[in-house]
């Protein structure tokens, strides 16, 4: 399939879920979708279009938390980034890690660094932070503040 065919097929199939499509350059497309449709669209891209899952990146942008799921269709060198906007107070989204092994770790990472809840995640344990890191403190949020009183930030070189 060519680039145009992939995009046409994609937009016609999911036109109800697509809120916005930004065709940035030949190899980059950003698509904003509704959070409810991520499971359908994500698995469709991965299984049917044959895209490789690159990674997901979460960003805290008050009043929302934004997740970008990056997929690449290598034959046509097209990077499709699915954007979903979640409510910052209660960010919840369906987990793709159940169906796609490759998503497992990044969802664990996002849930501890940004406090996003992935419903149905098979293994929601901590991945990166220490065991004594307090619950409910998310370092990648904009309003993160130092909680550790023993920390010493004075000495550089």
């Amino acid at each position: 399939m060519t680039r145009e065919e992939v995009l046409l097929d994609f937009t016609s199939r999911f036109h109800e879920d697509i809120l916005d499509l930004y065709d940035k350059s030949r190899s980059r497309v950003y698509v904003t979708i509704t959070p409810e449709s991520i499971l359908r669209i994500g698995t469709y891209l991965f299984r049917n279009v044959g895209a490789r899952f690159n990674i997901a990146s979460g960003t805290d942008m008050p009043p929302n938390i934004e997740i970008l799921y990056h997929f690449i269709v290598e034959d046509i060198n097209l990077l499709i980034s699915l954007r979903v906007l979640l409510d910052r107070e209660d960010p919840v989204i369906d987990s793709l890690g159940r169906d796609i092994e490759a998503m497992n770790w990044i969802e664990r990472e996002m849930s501890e660094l940004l406090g996003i809840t992935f419903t149905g995640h098979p293994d929601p344990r901590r991945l990166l932070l220490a065991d004594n890191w307090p619950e409910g403190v998310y370092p990648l949020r904009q309003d993160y503040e130092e909680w550790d009183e023993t920390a010493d930030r004075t000495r550089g070189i």
Partner: protein
Amino acid sequence: MMGRTIIPIGPYHPLQEEPEFFTLTVEGETVVDIDVRIGYNHRGIEKLSELKTFENSTFVIERICGICSTSHPFAYTRAVEDVFPMEVPIRAKYIRTIIAEGERIHSHLLWLGLAGHFIGYNTVYMWAWKLREEILDVLEILSGNRNNYAMFKPGGVRRDIKAGDIPVCLKKIDSILPTLDMLKKAVLDDPVLHARLKGVGVMTYQEAIDFSALGPTSRASGVARDVRKDSPYGAYQEMEWDMIVTQNGDVFDKAVVRILEMFESAKIMKYCLNNLPDGEIDANIMDVPPGEGIGHIEAPRGETFHYVKSDGTNRPVRHKVRAPTFMNLPTYKATVQGETISDATIILAAIDPCYCCTERIAVKDPRGRLLYNGKDLVQLSREKTEKMKRRMGVR
């Protein structure tokens, strides 16, 4: 049913690199389950990078991983350039390619040495690391540093290559090729290595796709994917070179892919040094406009992926880093299960993780008594090689 035993591996091991903690569940000799706990190395780089300006971030990014101290800045600078989007001067592209390929050779040699060490071929270890010094010399001549080259900046490179240095570098590269060839033959023709590594830790094509495995790990399973070919960047489309793909997906094939790739890298480096175009090395970008950019490149271990979001100030709002091991590591689930403990060491090492926690291992029986320690496990692996040698009548 045989009783299950839990083997904790790590987090500290004397060999090298970062701490990591694995839990192997074994039944008798066979591994039935594996779990990993990372985070011993988490330094919050993504957050740190948001505190720095676009130019200064390069230095933090370089220090994500010492072996990939080119790949990360390369992907990062491409991400920043993709915000515009813009092209860097052609000479800068060539210089970037030279440094990146030099890094690939030294990284693969490092892996080869360690892999040899794990299965009891310490000669390979010493030879490979000795060769590696020559490549580090080349990189030192070109960039001034053995590691952490500080060559990259958004829009170009920081330092030019002097015409006088080129013949010296070419000579050094040529001087390692015969020894590399010898190493290649020694590995590919050795019957013991064949017996020891073939059919061990197999990852099928479908598993490679499901885990989105990257780089040599997936190319050994027949997935013909390489960012350098698929979405060309740098100077890679200017010359002929081959993508190395093998079909079996076992440890042996992963070694083969890496060894053959080194020759391709040497070829690319030589071409770039011989045909270095004249011109600027820096596009001198001033302000980064608001927007988003993605940069991905082929690092020695697979695709490195960076995402940068800018709001028009001089700092990134968000900077996401994805290193290849993040995707490759979970493939252990597919490769280690069903193998024996003595093979676990080399399988864990075969994806070339950014750490090899294979020495600080302790085997405990269900009541928590210590049965083996870390050394014993590597010992186990070596003994298996010895046994095979004896059986095959090789000395």
